[in-house]
């Protein structure tokens, strides 16, 4: 009974809600027509990235104020694949979705395995990002075409020296071809950034391979691994391709235990000699004080006995 009532109540509310939405919509259009001239200009930038096989498109929206670029936040960005149209569930292209830029002016679209499955035969992507009907900014459209590249990655350890070999291939006419004389980076993932290793300006050989030695004295992760990243960066043609792997590693991060008893430890971790000295002094002196208080009561007791 209660449920039914609730249901009816909600039903009654729906038309109200729709009217509310429509009214917002119309106000929006009205506002737009009225203020076209006063809208701000912003610029949009697209970049493509593959991290461990996960594809993503990053949209960055900025605005130039006094010669500086400042991020544009809370802007809705629509992303399309191939062309601006509705989502095509059979081919998998068209409207991909929309996102709102964050406080850094960034919005990142990540594609799932299903997308990869659907697009397994496709190696050239054309992404289009648009904004429209924003109250503050003029409409924008930006596109990026990327040709897919791949990194394969092996390592071997000999005489305590671990060498990482990464091979870069690009797709040409649907076939994977090694990419020689291309600059790549070998990195180690750290808490706040990527630490480069190997020679400066690592370039692939004729097989499309680079190799670099991990510095032998570098501490790894706590779980006896070290995370190595191979990166190829060609934003205009291939986007950023990154692949990372946890390699077994013997050198653990040195951990400093803070349990020692020191002067700067917590109260319950005071140095033992200090505790012994203070406690014995307190016992000694307050013990005597207790004895004196006892004497005081002895005086009182003596006062009660008759002479």
């Amino acid at each position: 009974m209660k449920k039914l009532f609730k249901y009816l109540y909600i039903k009654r509310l729906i038309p109200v809600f729709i009217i509310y939405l429509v009214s917002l919509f119309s106000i929006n259009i009205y506002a737009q027509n009225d203020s076209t001239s006063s809208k701000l200009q912003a610029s949009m930038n697209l970049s493509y990235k593959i991290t461990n096989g996960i594809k993503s498109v990053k949209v960055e929206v900025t605005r130039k104020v006094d010669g500086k670029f400042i991020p544009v936040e809370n802007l809705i960005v629509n992303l399309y694949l191939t062309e601006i149209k509705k989502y095509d569930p059979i081919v998998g292209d068209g409207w991909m979705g929309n996102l709102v830029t964050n406080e850094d002016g960034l919005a990142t679209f990540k594609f799932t395995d299903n997308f990869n499955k659907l697009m397994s035969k496709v190696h050239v992507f054309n992404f289009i990002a648009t904004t429209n009907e924003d109250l503050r900014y003029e409409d924008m459209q930006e596109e990026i075409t990327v040709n897919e590249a791949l990194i394969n990655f092996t390592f071997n350890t000999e005489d305590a020296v671990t060498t990482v070999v990464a091979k870069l291939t690009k797709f040409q006419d649907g076939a994977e071809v090694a990419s020689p004389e291309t600059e790549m980076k070998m990195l180690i993932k750290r808490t706040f950034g990527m630490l480069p290793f190997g020679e400066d300006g690592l370039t692939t050989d004729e097989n499309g391979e680079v190799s670099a030695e991990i510095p032998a004295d570098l501490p790894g992760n706590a779980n006896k691994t070290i995370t190595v990243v191979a990166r190829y960066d060609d934003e205009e043609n291939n986007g950023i391709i990154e692949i990372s792997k946890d390699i077994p590693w013997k050198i653990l991060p040195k951990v400093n235990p803070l349990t020692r008893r020191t002067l700067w430890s917590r109260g319950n971790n005071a140095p033992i000699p200090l505790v012994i000295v203070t406690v014995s002094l307190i016992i000694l002196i307050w013990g005597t004080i207790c004895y004196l208080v006892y004497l005081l009561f002895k005086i009182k007791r003596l006062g009660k006995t008759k002479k």
Partner: protein
Amino acid sequence: MEDLITPKSEKEAIEMLNRYNEDLLPRKFGIAGKLWVTVLCIVIAIGLYNYIQQLRFGLKVTGLNDTVSWGIYISNFVFFVAVSLVGSLITAVLNLLNVNWRAPLTRISEVIAVSAIMFAGLIIIVDMGRPDRILNMFLHGRIQSPIVWDVIVVMTYMTISLLLLYFSLLPNIAFCRDRLPNIPKWQRKMYSVLSFGWENKPEQYEIIKRAVKILSVLIIPVALSIHTVTSWLFATTYRPGWDSTNFGAYFVAGAFMVGAAAVIAGMSILRKFYVHYDEYLTDKHFDRMGRLLVLLSFIYLYFTVNEYFIPGYKMKGDEAEHLRELFTGHYAPMFWSVQIFGMFIPIIVLLFKKGRKPLPIFIMAVFVIIGAWFKRYLIVIPTMLHPFLPLQQIPEASKHYAPTLAEWSITGASLAGALLVITLFVRYFPVISIWEIAEERGIHSDTIYEHLNEKV
């Protein structure tokens, strides 16, 4: 003392005892006394009002800032701790040395000590940003912190001082209970409770004597440690001017000196306002205390030279800036006034026998006390103004320190409070220990035990 009139017969002894009783009983204040208490109460009331303002608005009402985060509250605290050392000096040291003129001075010094240490404890709470969290000291105390040591020794010293005062006071409280005529009911009730069953029995006297002996030994290390630990609040930091291994001894020496001066000042005032007190606080006492003060001043001078001459000889970078400020800079007038009026002039004057007469010695004692207060100002504030890093990127107000009126009035109230405690004590209790005087003057113990509390 040499000229003590030892009683020849028991009858004479009883007469003497009765005379002491007549002379030394607490009595009602005259106009001057009432006025004095009123003035103190007004000063305290103003200070209390300002402290309530400080509780409401925070330490903003003071002149303190991020550079000078410790100001006159702390220097005043150090002053109180210094003064409180006198209790142990007169009672314990003179007692153990068996000095035969100490009896009239012991209680004065003990009262000064107790009130000073009480207000030392209070003023340190005033300095706290969060007095509402004072229990954290006990809930989360860290034994590594010198402040915790200080809290422990201040509480211990306060307890020991109170016991010392109380034990020797017992016969006199009972005496007031039994013999003070025409007193209000509450007053008699107070005496009755405080006398703690005292019946003037020889066994009770024996216990007092034993307790005082124990306390005299116990109070010396505690008194020394209270002042040493207070100096460590400064000496455990790295700051130029505080980073000194001389500090503990220097503070103790300074404390003995100002304590002795405080007793002299107290003696002078009592002698001025109470008839017959000159019979007990004789010129000889002033002369002896004068000599003691000179001795203590010389010791202090010795430590002062160590404290300033050696760093001044080296003029180490950060230290040099601080020392220059004291010797020739902004604080030079205060620094040299303190040295000259608070130390050199008293030493010179008191070296002469005429200088140790009651009036000049009183003036010198006041010089020493005022000098000692400002000396502690000079220990705390100039150092705070000279951190290692330059005074940059801070508001202009944080480059100086000037105590505000509120701060002065709260500090003044604490001094007035200490004086009020002493005053009220003098009003309600015999400030010269009658039975100890009698004993010192050769009246046999048995006579004292038998006749001291006899109703007239």
